């Protein structure tokens, strides 16, 4: 025990009482759990990277919401946001681009873009990935993201649609057993999905001719082969042109090739030869197979092509974004950023681009490509609207579409900082709907860069300000010191002279009094300088008004020897939260002011009163009172009563300091004439929030 390995019983119980309290233990547990979660998360990430495990190894919750172009998608996004908030999780809005995406109506595209923008504004990450099927895309992305919760809408589609295309939800539930899937009912499809067979790929007549040529060539080869080895397996040769035609030219040329191949096979190789008659039912099967192969291969090929096209688009966009991002990273200021953004978008969308920032209350052009310095009134109105609302305006948007320009907000650090305008002369929409996503991504990048530039500038500003503050404090301190030292000498000399040559000589008393007044002016000037500079450092603590008043009265006692000071400060007032030194100076200045205006011999009263939810401290004099209309101006700097016959000395700073200090502490000040007699009343009102609740 002496080695300190054992708790002495009293110490143990004290420790139990003091340290192992319920709140401390709860805090400890929380700390431990949080730390453990962090460690596990970090280890697991390392593990996953090392082994490239695919699967949801969730440490923290991650929510994934799959959005489509349907009108119910925004609802889905909001639901996901609520879920993410409830879980304290990060969340991602995902759109899977399938071949169907290429065939969406413009209104659907806009809705989709709006939905993703909504998600982005609700602090979601957004992603658009190409995939063959929605299910596959969601699964792949969810695995990459290690999502633990998936929110998805289930549309009320007809049973035959489900039979043909399957249900995304059912498939997800089946394939992603370790993930919670939240299914929300969604509305009807606004546009019926077109059958997949009606591809939008254009086929050219030449493709049919080439397909026919291939079949012809194959027929020739087939004839030669059948001469050499017999015609038993010639049918297989015809698979070649059918497959190639379907692969290269798409479905219809492929089918055409299939029909031609079947006909040619029938005509040249099936008995009876050189007729289109089929004698053997088995040979009929061969023809059907050829047609079937054409259909299947062309389907597959067109899927592959569509995927390749989507991937190529994504890759192109990513390349643009990556290039732009590095250009932005190098931008040292907003002008460079504006140039980069305007230049990039102008080139990319073959349009004119302007970048506007607010200057002196209106938007001004910071950069334009090609150089431009005016915008017409409609464009300006659209620009202002876009900036004020933080939403797109102008051509191609819902607001002021008559403008030649489309304006998009550039948001940074929680607000719209600038807008980008794109315009064309040929009255087409400046940005095609399918390019909106890319444009939004570019603008997001610019927003991030802008936030960085702003942060850097603010940082530099803060450093400058801190430096200035430091200098100012040092200067104030040294002025205070430099002025006090000679004053000290004067006061001490006066006392010394009085002691040596007769303490009753009024000259010495006057000297001391004047020095004391000078001293108060110096203090006031320094105080005022602090208020003006905003350099007040508060040290807020509970204060008893009795203490504060008594100390202030003690300090002004000798200066106000002409007046009786009457105190009415109940001893059961609540404590207040204030800075002792500032409050002290407030009170001294109020008393000083009362002494200046109260006729000699009249009392000065200090009255503290508890109001229903505030506390007021009033200093009352019996002077001439305030002239009408002076009540509000009394606390202004250098406020003096005009035409006053009392030319009392003072800098006019006292009450301004009272106000400055009171404001800093959160008190209110007011001035009024007394109701009970002639005289002025100056009040400090301490709000309920600064009253300390009664303690035992």
């Amino acid at each position, binding site marked *: 025990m002496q080695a300190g390995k054992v708790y002495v019983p009293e110490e143990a119980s004290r420790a139990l009482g003091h340290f192992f309290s319920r709140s401390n233990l709860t805090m400890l547990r929380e700390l431990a759990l949080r730390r453990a979660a962090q460690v596990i998360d970090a280890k697991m990430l390392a593990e996953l990277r090392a082994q490239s495990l695919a699967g949801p190894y969730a440490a923290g919750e991650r929510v994934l919401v799959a959005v489509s172009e349907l009108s119910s998608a925004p609802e889905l996004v909001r639901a996901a946001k609520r879920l993410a908030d409830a879980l304290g999780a990060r969340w991602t809005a995902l759109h899977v681009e399938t071949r169907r995406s290429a065939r969406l109506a413009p209104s659907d595209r806009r809705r989709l873009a709006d939905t993703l923008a909504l998600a982005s504004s609700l602090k979601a990450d957004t992603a658009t990935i190409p995939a063959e099927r929605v299910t596959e895309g969601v699964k792949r992305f969810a695995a990459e993201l290690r999502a633990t919760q998936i929110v998805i809408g289930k549309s009320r589609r007809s049973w035959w649609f489900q039979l043909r295309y399957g249900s995304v939800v059912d498939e997800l539930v089946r394939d992603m057993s370790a993930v919670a899937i939240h299914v929300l009912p969604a509305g009807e499809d606004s546009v019926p999905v077109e059958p997949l067979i009606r591809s939008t790929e254009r086929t050219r007549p030449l493709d049919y001719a080439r397909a026919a040529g291939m079949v012809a060539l194959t027929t020739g080869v087939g004839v030669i082969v059948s001469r050499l080895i017999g015609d038993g397996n010639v049918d297989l040769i015809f698979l070649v042109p059918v497959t190639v035609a379907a692969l290269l030219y798409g479905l219809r040329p492929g089918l055409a090739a299939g029909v031609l191949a079947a006909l040619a096979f029938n005509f040249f190789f099936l008995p009876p030869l050189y007729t289109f008659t089929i004698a053997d039912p088995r040979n009929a099967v061969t023809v059907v197979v050829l047609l079937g192969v054409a259909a299947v291969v062309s389907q597959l090929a067109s899927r592959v092509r569509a995927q390749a096209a989507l991937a190529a688009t994504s890759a192109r966009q990513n390349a643009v974004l990556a290039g732009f991002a590095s250009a932005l990273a190098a931008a040292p200021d907003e002008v460079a950023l504006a140039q980069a953004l305007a230049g990039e978008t102008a080139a990319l969308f073959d349009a004119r681009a302007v970048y506007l920032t607010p200057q002196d209350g209106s938007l001004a052009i910071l950069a334009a490509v090609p150089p431009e310095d005016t915008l017409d009134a409609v464009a300006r109105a659209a620009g202002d609207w876009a900036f004020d609302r933080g939403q797109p305006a102008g051509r191609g948007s819902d607001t002021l579409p008559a403008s030649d320009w489309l304006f998009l907000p550039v948001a940074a650090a929680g607000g719209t900082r600038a807008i980008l305008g794109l315009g064309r002369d040929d009255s087409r929409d400046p940005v095609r709907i399918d390019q909106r996503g890319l444009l939004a991504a570019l603008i997001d990048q610019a927003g991030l860069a802008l936030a960085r530039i702003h942060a850097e500038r603010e940082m530099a500003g803060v450093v400058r300000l801190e430096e200035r503050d430091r200098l100012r404090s040092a200067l104030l*301190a040294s002025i*205070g010191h430099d002025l*006090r030292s000679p004053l000290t000498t004067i006061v001490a000399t006066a006392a010394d002279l009085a002691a040596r040559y007769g303490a009753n000589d009024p000259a010495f008393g006057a000297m001391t009094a004047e020095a004391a007044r000078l001293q108060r002016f110096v203090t006031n000037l320094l105080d005022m300088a602090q208020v003006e500079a905003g350099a007040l450092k508060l040290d807020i603590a509970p204060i008893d008004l009795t203490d504060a008043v008594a100390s202030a009265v003690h300090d002004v006692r000798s200066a106000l020897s002409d007046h009786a000071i009457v105190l009415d400060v109940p*001893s059961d007032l609540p404590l207040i939260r204030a*800075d002792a030194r500032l409050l002290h100076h407030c009170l001294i200045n109020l008393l000083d002011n009362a002494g200046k205006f109260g006729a000699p011999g009249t009392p000065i009263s200090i009255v503290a009163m508890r109001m229903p939810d505030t506390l007021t401290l009033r200093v009352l004099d019996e002077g001439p009172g305030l002239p009408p209309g002076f009540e509000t101006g009394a606390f202004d700097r250098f406020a003096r009563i005009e035409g006053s016959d009392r030319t009392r000395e003072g800098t006019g700073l006292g009450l301004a300091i009272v106000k400055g200090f009171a404001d800093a502490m959160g008190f209110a000040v007011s001035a009024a004439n007394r109701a009970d007699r002639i005289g002025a009343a100056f009040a400090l009102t301490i709000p309920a929030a600064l009253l300390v609740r009664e*303690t*035992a």
Partner: protein
Amino acid sequence: MTAKILIVEDEVSIRRLLVRTLERAGYAVVEAGDARAALAARAIDKPDLVLLDLGLPDRDGLELLPILVKPPGPAVIVLTAREATDEKVIALDLGADDYVTKPFDTDELLARVRSALRRAAKAAAERVVVGFGDASIDLVERRVTRSGGEVRLTPKEYALLAELARHPGRVLTHAQLLRTVWGPAHVDDVGYLRVTMRGLRRKLEPDPAAPVLLRNEPGVGYRLQGNDP
């Protein structure tokens, strides 16, 4: 025996006036213009009291202070030209006996000097009964009387009054009082101190609304205005 006072002040005019004032009051005076001279004088002259100006040319007065007061050192009264309360609080917490703000009233300075010398002459343990106003506290019997009658205090009120009475006339900072009376965990609970002080004043002050015995130093602490013996 005349008490010996060391004046550490770099401004010659003030130092000279201080010397004259203190000599006239009957003290033996030693002067120093900087920290080095001050430390030398402390070792050689063994003053009973040091008047220390915090703004010295060669060393921060707050650095010098702990060295000066190291037992068996003199009592130190700090002279400061700064209004800010934090410097005074730090000085008191570092062991200064009292502080005086420039420009000071000579009579007030002499009163502080007398009070500090009295405290230094009589160790806290030897002080048994301390009188203030019409009341007194007996630190051995743990009794407080006022106008002959016994005053009933709560344990905290008594502890607070006793701590102040052990150093009559000296400012004890909020933190010092809270640490001694409420314990180290409550150094920042100034509210406790205010409320308890209110109770004490109600029982001991002639006019609790205008206290003269238990005096507040705004933003610094409290002092008990004891009766000079």
